[in-house]
Structure formats: C-alpha cells, structure tokens
C-alpha cells in the first residue's frame, strides 16, 4: 500500500463510515475494511480502477467529483478522504466545504509545491518543476491548482476550519525534525485532518 495511505489509515477511527474521493484501485478502503472494520465508498472515474475495486469487492461509485457531491446527505460519513487529488479539481476551496458538509472530518493529502526542489526548478532554472513525484509537463498535468503547505493552512484559517492534525513528510513519507520544523520548505507531501 502507498505509504501516504498507511498514514491516513492511522488517522481514521475504527468502525467509522468513510468516503474516499478519488479512491484509485481501492487500496485504502480495502485496508480499512480489513483492519479497522471501516465501511465506506470510493468515488472514481477511471475505468480500470473502477473495475479493480469491483473485483476486490470495494464499493465504488462512478461519479465525477467536479460535477458535485449533492447526492450525498449531510454528515453521512465520519471521514471524507481525498488523497493526492485536491489540486486536480476546479474549485478545491468549494470541494473542501463539500467534504465537511458530507463528513464530520476531512483528510486531505497533497504535494507541497513549496518544497525547496520545486523552488529551485522555478526560481533558478526558470521551469515548472518536473520530478519523479510530479511527472507531468505544464500542458498535460492534471494538477491545475497546486498549492504550498502554507497556502492550504491559510485557506483553512480563512474558512475558520480546525486543523486537527497535520503531517509534513518527505518523498518516502517519513517525517523528520526538519520537515516538522519547516514543513513549507522541506515536506514533499502535506497531510491535513480538518473539521468545522
């Protein structure tokens, strides 16, 4: 399982109801169902991923998140998760509102655009960063709303959201004293758990 999913899994209470937005092949929900008795649904639009979920028995719904989540009732889930996808949607800020309408808590992970290597790419070399972790060119990237660790923290503040927990980790999803000390500069992936 992807290391960030392991981390998210540790933050999800046992026996809870989880909605996983952009659930991929269902790895997180499979893990949660097996180890924490969590029942949940994944939303996905990729055909292969959807089929993978169906085959492994993970409830998956083909639904385009950009078209809205109005079909989900208020506070129907304990946790709504979005792993590494927030930056791919048209209005991440409104999506965050929706996540907290549907769920009591939201867990979001995203690539920190403020990482020093990205700054070197843009600041010194003068190019949009392309790395193993962000392997796209500017014109074909699905990531249309990059943000930094600090940007997201500020958004939560502006919206009056409570940051329950956060983690700032390197490419291998390990946290270190330096990623904790200067997350905006040294973390490659940011993980937030927020609530109203």
């Amino acid at each position, binding site marked *: 399982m992807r290391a960030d999913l392991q981390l998210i899994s540790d933050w999800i209470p046992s026996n809870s*109801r989880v909605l996983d937005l952009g659930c991929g092949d269902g790895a997180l929900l499979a893990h949660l169902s097996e180890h924490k008795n969590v*029942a949940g*649904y994944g939303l996905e639009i990729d*055909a292969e991923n*959807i*089929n993978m*979920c*169906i*085959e*492994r*028995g*993970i*409830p*998956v*719904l*083909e*639904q385009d998140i950009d078209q809205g989540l109005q*079909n*989900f*009732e208020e506070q*129907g889930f304990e946790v709504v998760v979005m792993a590494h996808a927030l930056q791919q949607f048209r209005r991440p800020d409104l999506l965050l509102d929706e996540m907290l309408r549907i769920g009591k808590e939201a867990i979001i992970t995203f690539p920190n655009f403020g990482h020093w290597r990205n700054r070197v790419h843009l600041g010194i070399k003068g190019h949009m960063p392309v790395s193993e972790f962000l392997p796209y060119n500017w014109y074909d990237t699905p990531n249309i709303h990059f943000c930094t660790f600090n940007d997201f923290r500020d958004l939560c503040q502006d919206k009056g959201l409570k940051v329950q927990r956060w983690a700032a980790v390197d490419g291998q999803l390990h946290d270190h004293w330096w990623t904790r000390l200067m997350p905006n500069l040294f973390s490659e992936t940011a993980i937030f758990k927020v609530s109203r």
Partner: protein
Amino acid sequence: MPDTIPVDSVGLITPQVAHFDTPLVLACGQTLPNYQLVYETYGELNADASNAILICHALSGDHHAAGYHSMEDRKPGWWDSAIGPGKPIDTNHFFVISLNNLGGCSGSTGPTTVNPATGKVWGAEFPMVTVEDWVETQARFADRFGIQTFAAIVGGSLGGMQVLDWSVRYPDRLQAAAIIASAPKLSTQNIAFNEVARQSIRRDPQFHDGQYIEQDTIPTNGLGLARMLGHITYLSDDSMGNKFGRQMRHDTYQYNYEVEFEVESYLRYQGEAFTKRFDANTYMLMTKALDYFDPAAREGGDLAKVLSKAQCEFLLVSFTTDWRFSPARSEEIVDALIRSGKHVSYTKIEAIEGHDAFLFPIPRYMNALRGFLSRVAKCLPKENA
C-alpha cells in the same frame, strides 16, 4: 445458423416446463389455481445448491437467454454474449436459470394459453401480473430446485426491477444483485410511451377486445406500431443516425408515403417481425407491470427505507445514451442504497446503443459484470471455485 457450436457457448439447449399447483394470489386480487413456467438452465447446480444465478428478462425477453435450440437457429439466446463457459456469467462456476415470466407468450401460462376454467384461450381475460407476482413465482421456482439462496440475481431494464424487488422481498435469498439499465419506478414520460403502445394495440380493429386468437386473427398493425415506437426509445439518436442517417431507398424523392428513408423500412420490418413472435396481450401486460412498479410507494416514497431491508451486495450499471432508463434513474437507486448504508458499486458505461446497450457485449460493461460475479464465485464451495 452456427456451423459448429462455439466453445464459449452453452451449446444446444432444450427448454423445460415446470407445473405449479399451489394457487397463486396475484397483486391484482385474482388467484391463479395453477400455472406453468417454461425455463432453461445452463451449467450444473452444485451439491449444496449455492451456485445458482437467476436471470430476469425484460419486456420482450423470454427464457431463451443463451445457447441454441437447434443447429438451424439463426441466432443464439438473447443474452448469449454474457452467459456461457468463461463468459461474465460463467457456467463453469454457476448454475444459471432463465425462465419465461408468468403472463409471457413463450410457453409459460399467459394470455395465449388455455384458461382451464373455460377451456378457452385466456386472451385479455388473463389477470394483470406485477413485478412482485413474478418474484413470487420465481421464489417458488427456486424452492422446486432446492435453492434457498441465489448466488446472484441479474436483470436489465424490467428485469432489473425484478432484481430490485427480490433484494427487499427475500433479502436472505440472494448474495448479490446486478441491476442493469433499470429504474426504481417509471417516469411520467415512460408511462406515456407505454400508453401510446397500448392504445395502438387496442385501437386495431383486429384486437377484438383482446379475444383475437378466438377470432383467428392478430392485431398486427397495432402491435407493430407499438413495437416501432418502443424500438425508437430503445435506441439513441446517435445510434440511429450512424446506422441510417438520411439514406434513401431511391435516388430522388418520390413524394408519396411509401418508404423514402431507410429508417422507415427498418422500423416497418422491426414492427412486423415482432408481431410474428410476440403476443399483443402479453405486450400490454408487460407494459402495465412496468407502470405499476414502485416499491418506494410502500414506504411513502422513501426508497432508502425500502432498501434498508436488503442484505446482498449490489452492482448497478447504466449507459450514457440510454434515455428510456437514463443513468440518473439508476443513480436514484444508488443514492438510496448509500443512504441505507448498503454495499453498492455503480458504473456508468460510455455506449452509443441507448437503452439496448444492456444487451451488447460492451467490454467495460462485461468486465464490471465479470468482476462482480467473480467475487461471488470465490465465495462458493471449492468444487465450483
């Protein structure tokens, strides 16, 4: 006609008949003292009768879902693409049952069979049957085979409504439910289409108030018209456009009411061919069964409350160009299942074929069905898995 039976076919099949002598009280209030159902089975029932899949047919379907009746058959059963060894409904693992619903016209008791009370063909005297009645007869049929719990029940369109009803009427009698291109109830527009179909049959002078068989005639014009109308609603604008466009029979306009455009010829052919294989009274009954279906009405319109009784895992499938039972209708069921916390997966398949898409072997659709049922197969005792 197949020169040889394909290896992934269930092969040559002989339909069978099951008689039932326990009276059946129908939703309409009438009682059938006895009745028979014609059916086919594919694959082998396992020792503990846990590997059965029930196929529920749609409006004009019947028991002949897969394989061939003879080497002279032009085409196999209506869902041959999905049922067979190695196919999504895999007869290497499952025992598949397909029956002709009560009120049908392919051998089960219905308007074309003889009413034992009068010695005459039932015709329009045959009582109205509903989806709930069908599920009841299917449950009795399962009892006959010693099948307490179906591994899965699968159906498209009107067949999907039967699956939906099964999931809440007999929640402990199925492990999995696949509901394809269906709806929790008909829309106003759907009922309206059905009414035009019925009126075109009833207004045919050959209808004779439904007793046309006694008069040795058939309301071919009315039934043909009903089918033409229905057929348009089963296709999409794009699929008709791709198939016929504005192709013409002649190089120039004839300025008369004979066939000018190929689509006219196609519809006339479809209408006429249908009257040779289908009964007008059965067609009317089936459209009424569609109209009446509304399980949520039992709970004041709360579908989630009705579905809270269900225990099985669900797969819902819709098709993008289906406007008779649009994706939004399947999504109503999905949303209700989510609200009641049920295990459901849903996929919306890109397809040009309109409502008819559920009969086509579209790869993504077939993969979803295969994946869903392979999970069910894994839970079977070793001998089948």
